[in-house]
């Protein structure tokens, strides 16, 4: 008997007890819907949380903020460490930052700003694939790039006492802003140095702006940082005679804290690499932070939650399977005479079994199909309606992309698989019973 004929046979048989089949499909559809909708909450919230985390930091990035020296003492990352990182296969790029230990005043023409200053080996940034808002990375010692908000925070140097410079939000008024193209402009900045006895001395340095960094991922972050070259740091250091341009001379015993890099970021190829790299570097004694390690914990937590929800949903499917068992048992009993005749003329037990298994599987599949469709409808409605309700309660709009319920295809596959396995199991006993039907008894209508 071909599969097609079996299926047609099943369809014919099912038509004979439409109402019963309908109720059974309805029960399995409801169970399937329940399973999917329940688990979809886990999936939805997981997605929301992940999105939140991903937005915060680059996903392929590992931040290294120190290590231990031979005596188990904390120290900053140094040049050898960075060279070692660059030698690792999984590392695509390494970018480093050194914080200048003073906040110089930067003057562009008529405007000025006090800005944090960072030292970068720009080639590392380039490898990491830094995106600039405008311009390009420095190629000479006296070239710099500035943060995205540098320009709009430049304030006029000379104003009348009573003129208001800032608006109510603390932003510089439009008409007082610096309006020239900032790229290519020469900036001068003043580095201070302590001479002892409350005496300070200062020197003016000059640099040319070649680029502006990209807008920070987080809307509320204001980036006015100035990024200078290592060569420029060297000339600042030779003036201040301290590391990182400290105004005051340092004390030697704290050397491990003030030498070395302040920020080191490794960039890898993809998430699995980041995870492997994170573990490796942790084992080697580096203090490491990556979104990946945080993600791992989030994922474990949510996967447990999802498994729990799926488990509860499966109970509903199991309950529905009682219906399928019942329906199939009745079908076998009702059709016993027909089965007897079929066996007599040469239907093998295997064929009989397959026909009944096909019928229960078909019921399960129909249930899973309708269940999935309804689950999607419910999921969309939930995502649409719950924000409306919450906004009504809290009186303010919820953040974008907040998802309460999500049904990824994996969930559909899991749910359909569970439904099918359960229906096949619940249909297998009646199917087995069908194969055991005694031909003679069945033909005598004794069953």
């Amino acid at each position: 008997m071909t599969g097609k004929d079996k299926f047609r046979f099943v369809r014919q048989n099912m038509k004979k007890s439409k109402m019963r089949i309908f109720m059974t499909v309805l029960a399995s559809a409801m169970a399937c819907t329940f399973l999917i909708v329940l688990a979809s909450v886990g999936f939805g919230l997981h997605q929301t949380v992940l999105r939140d985390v991903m937005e915060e930091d680059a996903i392929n990035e590992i931040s290294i903020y120190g290590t231990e020296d031979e005596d188990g003492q904390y120290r900053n990352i140094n040049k050898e460490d960075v060279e070692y990182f660059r030698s690792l296969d999984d590392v695509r790029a390494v970018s480093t930052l050194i914080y200048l230990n003073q906040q110089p005043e930067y003057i562009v023409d008529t405007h000025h700003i006090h800005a944090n200053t960072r030292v970068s080996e720009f080639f590392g940034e380039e490898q990491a694939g830094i995106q600039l808002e405008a311009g390009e990375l420095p190629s000479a010692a006296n070239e710099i790039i500035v943060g995205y908000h540098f320009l709009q925070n430049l304030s006029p140097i000379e104003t009348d006492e009573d003129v208001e410079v800032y608006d109510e939000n603390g932003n510089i008024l439009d008409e007082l802003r610096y309006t020239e193209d900032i790229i290519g402009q020469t900036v001068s900045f003043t580095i201070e140095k302590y001479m002892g006895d409350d005496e300070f001395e200062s020197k003016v340095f000059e640099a040319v702006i070649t680029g502006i960094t990209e807008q920070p991922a987080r809307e509320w972050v204001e980036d006015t940082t100035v990024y200078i070259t290592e060569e420029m740091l060297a000339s600042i250091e030779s003036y201040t005679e301290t590391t990182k341009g400290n105004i005051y001379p340092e004390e030697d015993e704290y050397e491990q804290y003030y030498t070395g890099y302040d920020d080191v970021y490794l960039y890898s190829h993809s998430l699995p690499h980041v995870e492997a790299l994170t573990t490796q570097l942790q084992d080697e004694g580096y203090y490491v932070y990556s979104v990946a390690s945080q993600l791992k914990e989030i994922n474990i937590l949510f996967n447990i939650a999802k498994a729990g929800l799926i488990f509860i949903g499966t109970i509903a499917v199991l309950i529905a399977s009682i219906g399928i068992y019942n329906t199939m048992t009745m079908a076998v009993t009702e059709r016993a005479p027909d089965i007897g005749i079929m066996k007599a003329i040469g239907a093998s037990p295997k064929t009989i079994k397959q026909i009944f298994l096909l019928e229960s599987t078909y019921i399960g599949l129909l249930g899973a199909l309708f269940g999935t469709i309804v689950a999607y409808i419910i999921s969309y409605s939930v995502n649409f309606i719950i924000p409306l309700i919450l906004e009504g309660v809290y009186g303010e709009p919820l953040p974008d992309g907040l998802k309460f319920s999500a049904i990824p295809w994996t969930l559909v596959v899991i749910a359909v698989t569970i439904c099918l396995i359960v229906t096949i199991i619940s249909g297998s006993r009646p199917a087995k019973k069908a194969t055991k039907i005694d031909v003679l008894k069945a033909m005598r209508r004794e069953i």
Partner: protein
Amino acid sequence: MITVENLSHHFELGKRGNQTRIPVLHDISFEIKQGEIVTIIGRSGSGKSTLLNLISGFIRPIAGDIFITDTNVTKFNETQFADFRLDNIGFIFQNFQLIPSMTAFQNVELPLILKGLSEKERKKITDETLKRVGLEAYHTHYPSELSGGQQQRVSIARALVLNPPIILADEPTGSLDSETEADLLNFIQQLNQEMGITFLIITHDKEVANIGNRSIEIQDGRLVQGGSAS
């Protein structure tokens, strides 16, 4: 074609530990040649049906062997026997045993479906076979819409449709009036002559027994006459 050797059978009745044994067949041996029409006669309760059910594989013998087309069918498992029946044996039952929810056409088509033939082939063969039994006008009739004689012809068509070398019939005329009975007997003879089908027919009716080349008589489960082919 069919060889039965030292076949014995009994039924066990009652619960385990408190069983009564009902002996039905004792040491039956006979042989049927290809192309014969052999009838099995005997009183009601003598064990005729049991003998036929053993040959059909619906029940399994306690002792003895059955060879059909030189194959020892007592060694078959259920699936093997089912396949063997489909290929080799057509059945005509006393009360027709048609599937009530299927039309005449579908009932006759059933063995072809089990055999896995394509729809086109099935249609052709079923049409031919229904025509052969004179029911070309009754394709879409359900068994309940047919007379007893017509139902029996549907069941004959079903038995014939896969061209089996053997047809087994248990009291095929039992539910028919004498006129239809005569028609049926003629048809059986015709099939035997035209197609060389071997028939084994159970009856308790001496007249029916006359159509056969020979009769095997059973009394109280023992073969009393006609064991070997003439």
